[in-house]
């Protein structure tokens, strides 16, 4: 390329336009390339022949000014908006008048599912290597949260489900709702900010991130790096209830727990008040039964003692009565009258009963007492010793 210049002394000097023209012609030799980035600052005005936008790397934030003919842009009919990830085909171009570098696009394509999947896969490996999905990072869910945070779109269904489940299950916990755009351009950033904001709420002890089912693209923000980092760094435990069972957005991996639906998420974060009441009733019942059983046992023992007590006095009297009867019978057996009735007699001399024949003389008068009546008798013979039997 020949660039016009002048010689001043030993210097080769270019004019600005010559310099720019030179650079521009160098740039024009570079090949056409595809560049991937997030669309920002898109300006399409009917009166302008050129559409302007800025491409941005989502992570690093490096930017590139892109221009495109409005006619070409409109012909694509993509309806692209800020925040979308696109592939742009074009080449570097210098606006010679200003020396500004821009990327002249010939076509724009919305990023395909395969590209998104690959990007998500790359991000997943990166974040996994950082340890964001590690089990050790997971926090246990609170047993009795004061308030439950809910981050959701202006999607009445998810909110209604959570409200209903919370009211029926554990109405003590308040619900703090943060509504934000959950799909389309800028959704990732909004969700990430919402998670941070709701986590700082003084009463929120656990956070549910809910999003009903949707297309793959609809759920993309929940794999956005900012959202995944916000979930992993949340001050309170996060339960992810995003999409359906088979979708696994990256925020699911960073969350402390995962639920298939918003209702299931509520079941995870609050206890069931009815179940608690039932358990309390059961424990209370068991307590009552213990006390009643104990009292019943004591009463039974007491009754047994009382029965013993009732028997014992009679028993004691009976024993004494038997012993007394025995003594009485023996007493009757040795009664003097009974002895006389058997044929014995009492012989008296004077006032003394006689025991020894030798103590009376022949002719003495003695009294003989019989069972019935008595006799007066004179002694006619004395035999001092009884003959041997």
């Amino acid at each position, binding site marked *: 390329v020949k660039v016009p210049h002048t010689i001043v002394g030993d210097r080769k000097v270019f004019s600005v336009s010559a310099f720019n023209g030179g650079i521009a012609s160098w740039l024009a030799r570079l090949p056409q390339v595809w560049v991937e980035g997030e669309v920002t600052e898109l300006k399409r005005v009917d009166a302008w022949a050129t559409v302007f936008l800025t491409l941005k790397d989502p992570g690093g934030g490096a930017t590139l000014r892109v221009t495109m003919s409005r006619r070409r842009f409109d012909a694509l009919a993509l309806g692209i908006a800020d925040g979308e990830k696109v592939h742009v085909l074009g080449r570097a171009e210098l606006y010679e008048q200003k020396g500004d570098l821009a990327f002249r696009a010939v076509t724009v394509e919305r990023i395909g599912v395969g590209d998104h999947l690959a990007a998500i896969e790359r991000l997943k490996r990166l974040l996994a290597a950082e340890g964001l999905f590690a089990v050790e990072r997971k926090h246990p869910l609170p047993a009795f949260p004061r308030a439950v945070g809910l981050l959701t779109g202006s999607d009445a269904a998810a909110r209604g489900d959570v409200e209903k489940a919370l009211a029926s299950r554990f109405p003590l916990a308040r619900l703090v709702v943060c509504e934000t755009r959950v799909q389309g351009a800028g959704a990732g950033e909004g969700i990430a900010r919402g998670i941070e904001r709701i986590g700082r709420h003084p009463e929120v002890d656990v956070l549910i991130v809910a999003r009903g089912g949707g297309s793959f693209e609809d759920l993309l923000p929940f794999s956005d790096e900012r959202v995944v980092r916000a979930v992993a760094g949340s001050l309170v435990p996060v339960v992810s209830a995003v999409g359906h069972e088979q979708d696994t957005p990256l925020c699911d991996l960073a969350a402390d727990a995962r639920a298939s639906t918003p209702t299931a998420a509520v079941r995870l974060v609050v206890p069931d008040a009815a179940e608690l009441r039932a358990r309390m009733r059961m424990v209370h019942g068991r307590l009552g039964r213990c006390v009643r059983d104990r009292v019943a046992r004591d009463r039974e023992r007491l009754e047994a003692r009382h*029965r013993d*007590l*009732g028997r014992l*006095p*009679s028993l004691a*009297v009976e024993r*004494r009565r038997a012993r007394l009867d025995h003594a009485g019978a023996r*007493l009757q057996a*040795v009664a003097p009258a009974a002895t006389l009735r058997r044929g014995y007699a009492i012989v008296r001399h004077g006032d003394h009963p006689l025991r020894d024949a030798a103590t009376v003389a022949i002719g003495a008068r003695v009294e003989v007492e019989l069972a019935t009546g008595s006799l007066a008798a004179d002694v006619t013979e004395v035999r001092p010793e009884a003959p041997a039997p």
Partner: protein
Amino acid sequence: VTPDERPFEELQRALEDIVARLERGDVPVDEVIRLWQEGDTLYRECARRLETVELRIEELGIGSRPSGEPEPD
């Protein structure tokens, strides 16, 4: 005769002593009658006391049924 103030058990022992002595047969006949009469008195006193206790037991309903429960059919 003044009522005997001794406890029942003592009276019963005295009665049994008398019976045992009378059964041995070594008691003088005059003594026998006195002793027997004493034994008889002890027996009546003991029997009277037992009857009194039995009466009290019945009055108090001891052993008839546990208190506070209805009488079984």
